[in-house]
């Protein structure tokens, strides 16, 4: 097997790479360039566009001065956003700037589109309330008090954080939806990539196609895939949020399939599970997948961070 072939198509061909090239080559792009609009690049048009931009900036600055009253002399880093009517999606609305401490509140007739510095976007649904807590090179932090937002972030892990009353969603890259109901309870649904949902030192790992519920008074629940059975979901709610848990852990373990090893892996870190209970969880994991040779059962049950990560990598093939 030659890495050189994978790198630059020199060296001895790797049969598997060659085979994939042939099979996947069917989807290769070979389209011509699109027609270039005839107006593009014309000096007159460009001047007009530049003038419009300058006028727009002037109007925006004036508008903000009125809107916000006295502002600090030193410009603060801010995010551009726009309130968009739900009914017609008209995106010609005035562009605004959100700075640290500002809130956005949408009613039933509007949503908001935000640009998250240079790392992504947030779409805020109607009837939502959101605050920019801070924005900077080391962290961008929002607080979703109520409603629903969808975030697309393509940035180093942990650079983008959204607080909710029930826990903080810490972005590890990609696309997710976060909801907070009137009672402050949360729901995190990850579409692409992965997110950590955290509170009080407990971190729930939520990868693509998984979700995690949270309660304001109890914190995060245990993540599960969208494909999880109703029985598993019900048992998890009893385990995570129920007053009388009864046989909830047994029911969870019983309901898990190989794909639900995501749930089992997260349970290994569950704050309410003692070592014996974690042992039962690990038994179930091992029924699906033997522990890799380099990992020991004791290290898993002791919640050794490196060991848990290695186990997650091994189980990730099923997710």
């Amino acid at each position: 097997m030659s890495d050189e072939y994978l790198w630059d198509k020199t060296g001895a061909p790797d049969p598997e790479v060659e085979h994939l090239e042939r099979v996947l080559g069917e989807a290769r792009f070979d389209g011509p360039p699109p027609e270039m609009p005839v107006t593009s690049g014309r000096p007159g048009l460009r001047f007009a566009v530049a003038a419009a931009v300058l006028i727009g900036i002037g109007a925006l600055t004036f508008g903000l001065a009125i809107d916000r009253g006295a502002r600090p002399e030193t410009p603060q880093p801010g995010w551009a956003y726009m309130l968009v009517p739900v009914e017609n999606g008209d995106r010609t609305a005035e562009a605004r700037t959100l700075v640290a401490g500002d809130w956005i509140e949408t009613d039933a007739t509007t949503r908001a589109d935000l640009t998250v510095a240079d790392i992504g976007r947030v779409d805020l649904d109607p009837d939502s309330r959101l605050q920019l807590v801070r924005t900077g090179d080391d962290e961008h932090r929002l607080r979703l008090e109520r409603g629903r937002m969808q975030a697309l972030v393509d940035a180093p892990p942990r650079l983008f954080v959204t607080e909710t009353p029930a826990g903080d969603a810490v972005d590890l890259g990609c696309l997710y939806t976060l909801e907070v109901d009137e009672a402050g309870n949360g729901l995190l649904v990850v579409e692409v990539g992965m997110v950590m949902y955290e509170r009080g030192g407990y971190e729930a790992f939520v990868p693509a196609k998984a979700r995690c519920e949270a309660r304001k008074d109890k914190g995060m629940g245990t993540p599960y895939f969208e494909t999880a059975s109703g029985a598993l979901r019900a048992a998890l709610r009893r385990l995570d949020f129920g007053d009388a848990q009864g046989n909830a852990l047994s029911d969870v373990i019983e309901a898990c399939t190989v794909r639900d090893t995501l749930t089992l892996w997260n349970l290994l870190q569950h704050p309410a599970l003692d070592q014996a209970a974690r042992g039962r969880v690990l038994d179930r994991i091992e029924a699906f997948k033997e522990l890799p040779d380099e990992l020991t059962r004791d290290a898993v049950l002791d919640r050794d961070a490196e060991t848990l990560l290695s186990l997650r990598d091994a189980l990730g093939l099923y997710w």
Partner: protein
Amino acid sequence: MSVDARSTARHCPRVTTVPDPAPLARGEPDVAAAVAAVLSGDREAFGLLHGLFARMVHAILLARVPAREADDLTQDVFLTALRKLDQLKNRAAFGPWVAQIARNRAYDHHRRSRRFDTLPAELAGRGGADALEAREALAAIRALPAAYRETLMMRLVEGMTGPEIAARMSMTPGSVRVNLHRGMRLLRDALGQKETR
């Protein structure tokens, strides 16, 4: 240290920064000059940029949307880039800039459709073992972290070499090599896992 804190580098390698491009390698087209020419209305220069970057853009889209839609979206991305070209401050950074437009376009597409085909339907109408295998391979690549996903799409679908990917994305050859190597290892594991199930 938390489990996640140790895992950050492992799971979401950053691919979207717009770094200063490396000095022109021998034989590399002058992208900044092509951008300047397009801004003055030069159609040939637009064709040159399209020829250089269309496969990269297509691969980025293909990593996120069904193949039957990736072709049209590729053209949309170039038209968007053309409209916004005068906003590009560092003309030599056209590659990472248009790559980010492609990612945003895929997101828009995804947001509208509200669902993502886990198993792409693009080849559903075609029969044969190859079509099935292609579907499985595309799905397996799409399940990888973004940096591996995009790099492998460029290499295996678009037929770009590692040095070419590095040049178009303004990434270091070392980073691309690592992404290819690790991505391919994960892909082999994933495909092997499917076979043994």
